[in-house]
């Protein structure tokens, strides 16, 4: 089962920095401590929470690199020096700062980390430099919409009942090396191709609105519990595509791309016909993040 999502950065030969979702940081820390103290007490691993030590700001958008290059003129953040999924450490105002080239929004994006005592200074400086680039603050609503457009699973999909394979990330699990969850992930019930899998949904009629929590039934099938094949986990109006989009967990999902299903919402009225599609609605090749 997927517990949480985040990124892991290797900062040195034996030095790693792990991020989690906001709500799950304590639980993940607890699990890391459990793993190193109880499951593998023989491993030489130390772990400390540094959540309070760092202030981190996401800088996203086509101008993000130019903005950061101006903000940190002494640091080479060219595509060659800092490729997608790269990271670098440097000194800023006498302290260690880090830039990670990560993207949750799907745009070209970076995360800038400074010690929390310098956070206020850093974010003001970023907006000051950002003025010439038209930088604006973006909130969780914008982030929520962009992550649905990119098909990035979040809390609604990481509900404690989904596996990495259900979420389309089977390829991220090593076939050669051990990892937490490897044994469980191979159990027949968790590899059943009929399991609910992450899919994208778009309304057949562009005016149709897909609502989170709606149930998925085959087109023409009676909307009763015995015909239930999944549900909508997240939905949003996509400003990029100009219509409603949704992510959902659908029985045998990845083999049903192109099929029309009924999105049934008995509470808020009306059924909407939707086409099953890839959960990645925008920039599926990832051109933007690698630009």
């Amino acid at each position, binding site marked *: 089962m997927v517990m949480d999502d985040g990124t892991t950065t290797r900062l040195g030969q034996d030095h790693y920095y792990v991020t989690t979702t906001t709500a799950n940081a304590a639980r993940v820390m607890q699990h890391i401590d459990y793993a190193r103290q109880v499951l593998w007490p*023989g*491993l*030489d*691993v*130390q*772990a*400390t929470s*540094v*959540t*309070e*030590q*760092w*202030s981190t700001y996401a800088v996203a958008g086509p101008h993000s690199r130019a903005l950061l290059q101006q903000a940190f003129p002494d640091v080479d953040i060219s595509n060659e020096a800092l490729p997608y999924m790269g990271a670098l450490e440097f000194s800023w105002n*006498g*302290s*260690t700062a880090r830039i990670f080239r990560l993207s949750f929004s799907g745009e070209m994006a970076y995360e800038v980390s400074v*010690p*929390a*005592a*310098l956070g206020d200074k850093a974010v003001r400086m970023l907006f000051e430099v950002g003025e010439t680039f038209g930088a604006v603050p973006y909130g969780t609503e914008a982030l929520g919409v962009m992550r649905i457009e990119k098909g990035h699973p979040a809390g609604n999909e990481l509900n404690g009942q989904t596996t990495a394979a259900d979420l389309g990330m089977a390829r991220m699990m090593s076939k050669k090396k051990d990892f937490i969850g490897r044994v469980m992930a191979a159990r027949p019930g968790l590899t059943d191709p009929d399991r609910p899998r992450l899919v994208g949904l778009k309304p057949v009629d562009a005016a149709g609105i897909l609502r989170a929590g709606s149930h998925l039934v085959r087109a023409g099938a009676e909307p009763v519990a015995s015909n239930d094949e999944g549900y909508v986990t997240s939905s949003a109006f996509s400003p990029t595509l100009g219509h409603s989009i949704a992510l959902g967990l659908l029985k045998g999902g990845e083999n049903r791309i192109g099929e029309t299903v009924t999105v049934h919402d008995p509470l808020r009225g009306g059924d909407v016909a939707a086409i099953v599609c890839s959960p990645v609605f925008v920039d599926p090749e990832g051109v933007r993040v690698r630009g």
Partner: protein
Amino acid sequence: VAEELSVERRQGVSLATIMMRRGACARELGQAMGISLIEEGGVSRAGRTILVGTGPGTWLAVSDAAEGGLDLALRSRLDGLASISDQSSGYVLFRLSGPHARKLLQRGAPIDLDPRVFGPGSAATTVIAHIGVIIWQADEAGRVFDVAVFRSFADSFADWLQSVTVAASS
């Protein structure tokens, strides 16, 4: 009461966590630091840096030396013996001074702070008002205590201090 208790947020203090590597022992760490390191918890002093025991094989290093880079200095000194993480921004240090400091902390901390069991060099990791804290006695006479609180809880801890100080004075 104002003269009997002063509360300050300590400035210019560097902090780092020290976690012992597997196979190393506190005696080796102490030798590398040039001190005799207390393993059971409590405060060990190494020049302008103190090491506050926070758990088995873990310490919070606190340095009031003006120059930064405590984590880097410890990293090179304890290479192979311990893992070091900078926490200079991670905690806010409150210093409580005065004859009532111990009594005030005892109103929040569910552990025994009686001078017979919590004296010079004593340290404890506990909670006050549901907030995780590291407390240590910072002087010999028992009039000065330092409390480390995670940065994002510092204002809540200050609120608690305010309410309990007012209650003590009324």
